[in-house]
């Protein structure tokens, strides 16, 4: 958690970008669509993990910032013609700024009340997306025009995948650097013991506010990535079920580590596709299966699948 990330980690991101360029040419668009979804969820889940896994702050407003990222990027492109490469960061900065403003009053609350206050903010944001019809077309949903990138219009999953892979690689590189930085250490310090942090000269309140603002920025980026491969957004899609999905990815995968979250994203990202191919009679059981998997994961893998995997490895080495 000091110095800078190992070259091995940074190199693994090159594999990711390589996959982003190679896969689209020969895989059916359905699998590329799933890949794009998983990469988007990865940015979203890592953002949530920074505020929850690293800093131990119970922030449930994540999907509101994701929504700001989507509507922001899309409307900047449609209303002001701002191309994607400028629009997406701007929308993400807006999401981060809103996160910062919400964090100021919210972070003096104790864990559970921070969760309720941020969850309430997220529901209010979803309500605003629904009722502010002049801006977001409200319940009709917003049909987003395809984003432009260097004059080239990104229309389908195949075009989008390399760009998303690059964005994810950059986000993960930034995350590795953050992990190994002073701020990264401060996040972990306020999670483990606020007293030690205070006694070491860390402004606990400001660190919490930065944790929430950075995670909001990540959610904004994920929102921008959404507009690359989806053409429509509806407020009902930004509700509590999306939050529970991302939260489960972080917790089941293994909160507190980027690899753990990655594992959670892949497992829970592909799960609905697997459940969908269950025999028709069992489709009605999907919700119950999802709940059962979440419950078992929490009961038997407190540190997530990644924690279990490391315990097995240590078990083998010892």
């Amino acid at each position, binding site marked *: 958690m000091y110095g800078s990330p190992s070259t091995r980690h940074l190199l693994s991101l090159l594999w990711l970008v390589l996959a982003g360029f190679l*896969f689209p040419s020969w895989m059916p668009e359905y699998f590329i669509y799933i890949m794009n979804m998983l990469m988007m969820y990865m940015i979203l889940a890592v953002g949530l993990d920074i505020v929850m896994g690293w800093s131990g702050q119970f922030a449930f407003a994540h999907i509101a910032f994701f929504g700001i990222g989507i509507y922001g990027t899309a409307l900047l492109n449609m209303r002001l013609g701002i191309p994607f490469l400028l629009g997406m960061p701007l929308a993400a900065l807006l999401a981060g700024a809103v996160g910062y403003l919400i964090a100021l009053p919210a972070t003096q609350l104790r864990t559970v009340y921070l969760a309720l206050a941020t969850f309430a903010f997220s529901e209010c944001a979803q309500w605003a997306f629904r009722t502010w019809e002049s801006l977001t077309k409200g319940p*009709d*949903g917003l049909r987003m025009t395809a984003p432009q990138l260097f004059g080239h219009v990104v229309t389908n999953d195949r075009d989008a995948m390399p760009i998303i892979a690059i964005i994810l690689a950059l986000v993960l590189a930034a995350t590795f650097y953050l992990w190994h930085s002073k701020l990264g250490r401060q996040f972990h310090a306020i999670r483990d013991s606020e007293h030690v942090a205070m006694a070491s000269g860390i402004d606990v309140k400001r660190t919490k506010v930065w944790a929430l603002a950075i995670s909001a920025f990540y959610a904004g980026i994920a929102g921008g990535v959404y507009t690359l491969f989806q053409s429509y957004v*509806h407020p009902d899609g930004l509700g509590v079920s999306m939050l529970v999905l991302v939260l489960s990815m972080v917790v089941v995968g293994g909160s507190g580590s980027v*690899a753990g979250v990655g594992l959670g994203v892949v497992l829970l990202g592909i799960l*609905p596709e697997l459940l969908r191919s269950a025999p028709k009679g069992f489709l*009605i059981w999907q919700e119950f299966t999802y709940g059962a998997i979440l419950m078992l994961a929490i009961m038997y893998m407190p540190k997530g699948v990644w924690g279990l995997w490391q315990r097995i490895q240590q078990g083998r080495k010892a």
Partner: protein
Amino acid sequence: MNLWKSKGFGRLIGAFAASLMAPMLHAQTPGVSNNEIVIGLFAPLSGPLVAYGVDPLNAAKMLYDDVNAKGGIHGRKIRLVIEDDKCTGNELVGVVKKLITVDNVFVLHGGSCTAAIAAAQEYIQREKVPFVMLNAAGDNAVFPATRYMFGSFQGTQRVYGSALAEFAVKSLKAKRVAVIVHDDDYGKANLAAAKAVIERLGGEVVAQERIPPNISDITAPVLNLRASKPDAILSGAYPAPAVLLAQKYGEFGMTNIPLLQSTQGMPTPSVYAKNVGNPDALKNLYHTWSFSDIANEAIRARMVGMYKKSFPDREPGPFMVTGVPSALAVIDTLQRMGRDLTREKFVDAMEKLNLTADVMTGPLQFAPGRRDALRSVVVVKFDGKTQKAMPDIYTWNGKDGN
């Protein structure tokens, strides 16, 4: 050991890819071989809206099986790939992309929720794959009309709104009409059509209440309706709020004012009556219906009999019949096309659809620039036990509320 780099992950993707190369090889129309047509059939088979998906999907499957039993279409049997779209945008887009790029279906037939369908509209437009909605009202997906999307086989919200408005002003001689709908896309379309018809026929809209779908206490909006002293109340509410509305309507002594409910609010009238509980509230109750199985008992018996034969262990709800018209349209189009099947020819043939089936209250028609199939519905009076179809058929003129 970063997951993305691990050998296991690479092998997993390789296996997927290899297994799919085979069907992509043959060059002619995807989903069609000399003895088979592959159709992707999907609806919400789990989650909150399962009642709108399971029975209608089974009804469509039953009609396809019936066609196969009678020797198929021009020597080709229909093979169905059935999926669950859970009525959400992400899932439906995933299902559509799987059906097109993995199962290589010829046409898509499915979808009960307009918002989820709209999420896939741009994709099917680009991939040029015909998309025939199962039983969604589909306002946002058929207005403005797009070449590859066909829908509204049981009428759009515009049709329900205008039919109830016309019935209220003409038959019930209502001058002051109050409208209560949801604050979503269905509500907006229903209200716009109703308002246009009422004002065109000399009536006046005295109250417009737009309520959230998950409202828990409907006292305030109903009080606003009562305060506007209407001669008739038009409602576009979904099942749960529709019952809450009828209860408060009974509680606040408004039962002498006719209550006119759009189709989506009463999937099963008998359950609606039991839930409302107050017989007074059912004295002046009417609802729209797109099928003639109420006026003609024989048709209903035939439909239910067919359903029971294919699905003995499931008791079909009245909404089962909403899956029938879209299947009839697909079968009729395929029969008209003969042996030479391509997606473009399917769209051209479907665009010339003009099907009058005994089960429907009106013709199923498409035209260049028109993608909503049914525009005529009947109004049914329901007193808690029996349903009686009113004599007239109400047709939307294509302009009101557009």
